[in-house]
Each structure stands twice: as structure tokens, then as C-alpha cells.
């Protein structure tokens, strides 16, 4: 195989990864990120953002299905229901007064974008909030997890057919879901 063919394959593969959303976060996630970070007086800076797209999710679910026990098969099933995971990690840029976090500020802000908060869990040094969004058919299509700590914020967005995923999480963990590690 000559060098030019290798280059073509590499470039094509990289472009495919980009277009299937397997590396970069999309515009929608950036809007969410801007919305979330605007609640913190922009005192956080981007450390890392990446996406796991449909191709990678499908691959992950294929690996899990190879296992034979029931729990792993359930995990595989749930992985297939997630189309995409987008993750952003943002570090504190200047000193942030963690105690000034207002419990419902983010909720009120995101409700304008039709996000509904289902869980908020506050610990002495961290806060986690979980939001969901329905489509016009009242199906849960997006889930947003925002984890705030003194040093960083992590934003995770899941997209897909999430009804069953969230229902299983609630059924298995009860309402202590946010407190579980």
C-alpha cells in the first residue's frame, strides 16, 4: 500500500469521525455549555471537550454484548439507546466562591430551554444536577448532568432514547441516585 493511499484512508477516517460526532462536541452542546457557565460569572475556562458519537457507542455496546451475564446484556441494551455522549471539563479561572451557588439559578435558566431538573444533590464540596428534556412526543431524548466543584465543572450530555435508561436507573437506585458514586 503506497503512502498516498494511507494518507487518503487516514484523512477519510478522521473526517468520518468528525462528521459522525465521534470527537468534537456540537453546536448544541456549546450552547448548553455557555448557558451553564454563564451562571458562574465565567470564572471557569475550558480544559477539555470531547464527544463519543454513534459509531463508538455502537462499538461499545457490541463489546458488552459479548459477555454472557444478564447485567452486561442490560448494559449493552442501554448503551444502544444512547446515540451520543458529549463531555466538557472546565477549570476554575479565578477564585470562585462556591458558597455563593444559588440552588435554583441554573434550573430557572435552563427551564427557558425546556430542560426539567429531576435531581439536585448538594454535598459540602460539590453539587450535582441532572436535567432531562423531552421531544414533542413526550419522549426523553436528552439528559444533562452538571457537576460543580471548587476546582472544576463537568458537563455531560447524553442523547438518544433515554426513557428506559433513566427508568432503569431510578428503579435500581431509587431516589438516592444522585447520592450514589
Amino acid at each position, binding site marked *: 500500500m503506497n503512502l498516498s493511499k494511507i494518507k487518503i484512508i487516514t484523512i477519510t477516517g478522521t473526517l468520518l469521525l468528525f462528521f459522525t460526532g465521534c470527537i468534537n462536541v456540537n453546536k448544541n452542546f456549546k450552547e448548553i455549555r455557555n448557558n451553564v457557565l454563564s451562571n458562574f460569572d465565567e470564572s471557569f475556562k475550558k480544559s477539555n471537550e470531547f464527544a463519543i458519537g454513534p459509531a463508538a457507542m455502537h462499538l461499545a455496546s457490541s463489546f458488552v454484548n459479548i459477555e454472557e451475564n444478564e447485567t452486561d446484556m442490560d448494559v449493552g441494551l442501554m448503551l444502544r439507546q444512547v446515540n451520543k455522549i458529549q463531555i466538557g471539563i472546565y477549570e476554575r479561572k479565578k477564585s470562585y466562591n462556591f458558597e455563593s451557588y444559588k440552588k435554583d439559578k441554573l434550573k430557572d435558566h435552563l427551564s427557558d430551554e425546556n430542560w426539567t431538573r429531576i435531581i*439536585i444533590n448538594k454535598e459540602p464540596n460539590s453539587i450535582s444536577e441532572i436535567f432531562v428534556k423531552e421531544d414533542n412526543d413526550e419522549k426523553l431524548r436528552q439528559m444533562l448532568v452538571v457537576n460543580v466543584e471548587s476546582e472544576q465543572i463537568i458537563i455531560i450530555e447524553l442523547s438518544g432514547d433515554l426513557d428506559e435508561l433513566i427508568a432503569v436507573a431510578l428503579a435500581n437506585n431509587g431516589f438516592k441516585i444522585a447520592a450514589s458514586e
Partner: protein
Amino acid sequence: MKTKLIAVLLMAFASVLFAQKYDYSSEPGYVDFGNLASLDAGKSATEVLIEKNLLKMVAKMSKSEEPDLFNLLSGLKLIKVNVFEIDSTAFGKAKDKIEKLTKDLSSSGWDRLVKTRGEKENASVLIKTQGEDNIVGLVVMTVDKGGEAAFVNIVGKIDLETIGSLSGKFDVPGLENVK
């Protein structure tokens, strides 16, 4: 032109209507616990709000193995849970809060099922009925000196005989007091 304008306006109006979220505060069984910030003393605090669409999904999952639970969850519209890890100072505040809320709810048509008062534990369970047999709201408020205060509001069609199963199945605090 005029027809098109009317069509666009109608579509915009319909989309706004569609997008409006359901207002649970209009439900007779809904309770606003007010500002619970005084109980949030820097230790852990959790708030969970599960609305009817998600409850229906959870109900579907239990349909074949736990039909009683399926029937129970299918009738619910909202489960709201606030849990606080508290110290001795907040224990006194939580007790006062429970007393006040119990008094307010009793005077606005809620019936008290359980009232427990002790040095180390307080609990109050109230229901809201509509008609003769329909329970449309349940409130459970508990605090124990061991370190936890819980405020639970369940809205929808409630069966008192099976509501306690939410305690074991979903870790909803305080429902073991409902018998």
C-alpha cells in the same frame, strides 16, 4: 397573504401552547414546602422531582413482575422529595418547620393520618382527599436527631395500602410511617 399570516400565527400559538410545561401547583394534592434553605446547613441535601411521564416509564418496567406497583405508579403525577442531612441546630428548625406546615395544611383541608412527636424523632403524614374515597395528595415530613430530615409530596391517585412499597423500592424516605 392574509391566509398565510393567519396560518403562521396559529402555528406559533400552537407551538407555544404545546411547549408550556404542566403546572403541578394547580393540582389539589400539590404542596409547596416553601423555603427549606435554613435546613441546608452545608451538609448534604438532595431534591428529587419526578413527573408523570417518567413515572409512567418506571411503571411500565414493573408491569409484569409487580402489578401492584405498576397500578400505583400509573396513577401518580408527581413525586417530590427533599432530604437533608442535619445537625442538632437544624433538627430544631426542622421540627418547627414540620409543626408549622402541619398546622397550615390541616387548616386548608388536609387530613392528618400520623403525628409522632419525640425527643429524637418527629413525623407527620397528611392526605388530601377529593370526594369520598379519592386520595389525591400525600405529604410526609420527618426529622430524626440521628441526622436526616425529609419532606415528601406525592400527587395523583394514591392507594394507601400500596404507597408504602415506594419506600422499599425507591428509597422514598418516611413512607414507612404510612400504614
